[in-house]
């Protein structure tokens, strides 16, 4: 698809301002950022630092006020809503702090959801959903409802849902925020494995520095700007349930 060495994510001079009554809130100011394929990056920062806005922009849920965002070489910063929905469906997987599984709907059907909107045949949906659930270690829970699963299991289902469409970018917004520390490590280990074994580009927003420690790159934000961008040797997370 893209030439080797071309970054998956390329932000150039990206700003995002919100209109709050009379005043303008500058959530992002003139951000330049490259993320290569296969990187495992954490975005840190206090609340109001612009990290969530950055995540939404990267996930094509939002558009920059100024600047250019190229995803896999394609400028997506001026796309219409429907076009962005198509990009999300094809290129991006989301994991949220609060799992956001649809209640009273089996784990498998939750995982199938992105494929439904992606126009995949029923048989393939099922097969790919089961593969994704196997990947997160929940093959035997496919027909369980979210209410019958623990928090960690629900987040695994959400991760399966995020990877089922084989996206090039996995975005996670405080994925361990609702989990106890042991389960958090398990979830991080799962991200590490997906990054290592499947070469998936993972970008997660967190305010916990120990979570950030498991990643290979930590970007710290403050007042809508990138304060620091550090590459590091990640700590190996242990304890992932097989």
């Amino acid at each position, binding site marked *: 698809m893209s030439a080797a060495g071309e970054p998956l994510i390329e932000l150039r001079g990206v700003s995002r301002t919100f209109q709050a009554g009379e005043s303008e809130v500058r959530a992002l100011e003139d951000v330049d950022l490259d993320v290569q394929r296969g990187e495992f990056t954490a975005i840190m920062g206090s609340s109001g630092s612009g990290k969530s806005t950055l995540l939404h922009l990267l996930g094509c849920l939002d558009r920059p006020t100024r600047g250019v965002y190229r995803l896999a070489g394609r400028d997506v910063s001026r796309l219409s809503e429907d076009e962005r929905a198509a990009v999300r469906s094809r290129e991006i997987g989301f994991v949220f702090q609060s799992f956001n599984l649809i209640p009273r709907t089996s784990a498998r059907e939750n995982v199938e959801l992105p494929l*439904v909107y992606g126009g995949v045949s029923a048989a393939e949906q099922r097969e790919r959903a089961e593969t994704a659930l196997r990947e997160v270690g929940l093959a035997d829970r496919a027909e369980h409802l979210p209410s019958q699963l623990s928090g960690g299991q629900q987040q695994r289902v959400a991760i399966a849902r995020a990877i089922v469409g084989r996206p090039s970018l996995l975005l996670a917004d405080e994925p361990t925020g609702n989990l106890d520390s042991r389960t958090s490590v398990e979830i991080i280990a799962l991200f590490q494995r997906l990054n290592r074994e499947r070469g998936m580009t993972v970008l997660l927003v967190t305010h916990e520095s120990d979570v950030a420690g498991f990643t290979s790159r930590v970007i710290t934000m403050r007042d809508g700007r990138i304060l620091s961008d550090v590459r590091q040797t990640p700590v190996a997370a242990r304890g992932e349930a097989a």
Partner: protein
Amino acid sequence: MRLAAMTLRTALRALRRNKLRSALTMLGVVIGVAAVIVMVSIGQGATSAVERQIRSLGTNLLMVFPGATTRGGVRSGWGGASTLTVADAEAIAAECPAVSKVAWIKRSVAQVVNGELNWSTGIQGSSPSYAEVREWPVAHGSFFGEREEASAARVAVLGHTVVDKLFGVGEDPLGAVIRIKDVPFRVVGVLEKKGQNTWGQDQDDTILIPFSTAERRVLGTEILGTVDVIFGKTERPDDLAQASSQIEALLRQRHRTAPAEDADFTVRSLDDMARMSQSANDIMSMLLLAVASISLLVGGIGIMNILLVSVTERTREIGLRMAVGARRRHILAQFLVESVAISLVGGLAGAALGIGVSIAISALAGWPTVIAPEAVLGALLFAAAVGIFFGFYPARRAAGLDPIAALRFE
């Protein structure tokens, strides 16, 4: 298509998730659809009953009443004036080629006695042609003929109701002697049952006697030869208009009515009468239907209300669906399908209820009802339209949500 199936499944699941709420929401549509169907079936029942009654008067029939009309309607009805005579009737028979057969009657109410039983009923002095013109066959015995008319014979043909009132069960009325105004009459025939006429009169509550007998022995009119109604029959329905104008012209001439003057008689065909009662019926039906439709609209507002609640409750779900690639129109379709599902399921239940109530009304209240398939289908389509109409606003609201705000919604 898989997306359509999923959309439908999601909608049904959402409705099942709140069974009581969905059921209560549907109730409005159920009642609305049931009301529409019941109203239409009562209206149609009334219409077909009217048609049956009009037909029971006889086919291809014209009636001439004494008394004038204005263009707006009847000014003076039955027997309002004694302007029609037997001679008029005979002239119509002789001189109006479009009229194939003529009959005339004179009527009055009298007390009738048979042994211990007595009954007040309408006595009709009728020309011998009456039974044929009215297409009213005799069930037992025979009708009187010219000989009885000429001799003013004291013979009577009884309507079904009169037989019931004057004779015990199993008693044969034929050959019995009854007294009408103290005059003895021999019963020679019993008419077939005919039922109510258009204006709710029991047509079987009558006794027919020869016209001359009525004039001379029972009714005791001062002016001999006047009649209350002249019936004219045509061969074909198409001849009715022609027959009507021929009668009109002839009687105007015979009564020396100037062209500008109102005639002192009225010619009416069954068509006119059918139309009159039909239009009264139609107005009633439209009113009832309007009321029923309003309840359907109220049901629609209920749907809208609940869907708005549902959109709010499922804001995060909507945000999530958008995040994983749902376009706005997918979300719009999602909630529209939900709305139509409520209204259609409610509509089906309402149709069943409406049909049941219609049948019950027929059985219990004795009103005639006709369940028209097009009314059922129409009510269902209307319900679906209500679903789309009232579902659109909440659905558009859901589709218009900002995915980021929706995902953050608590």
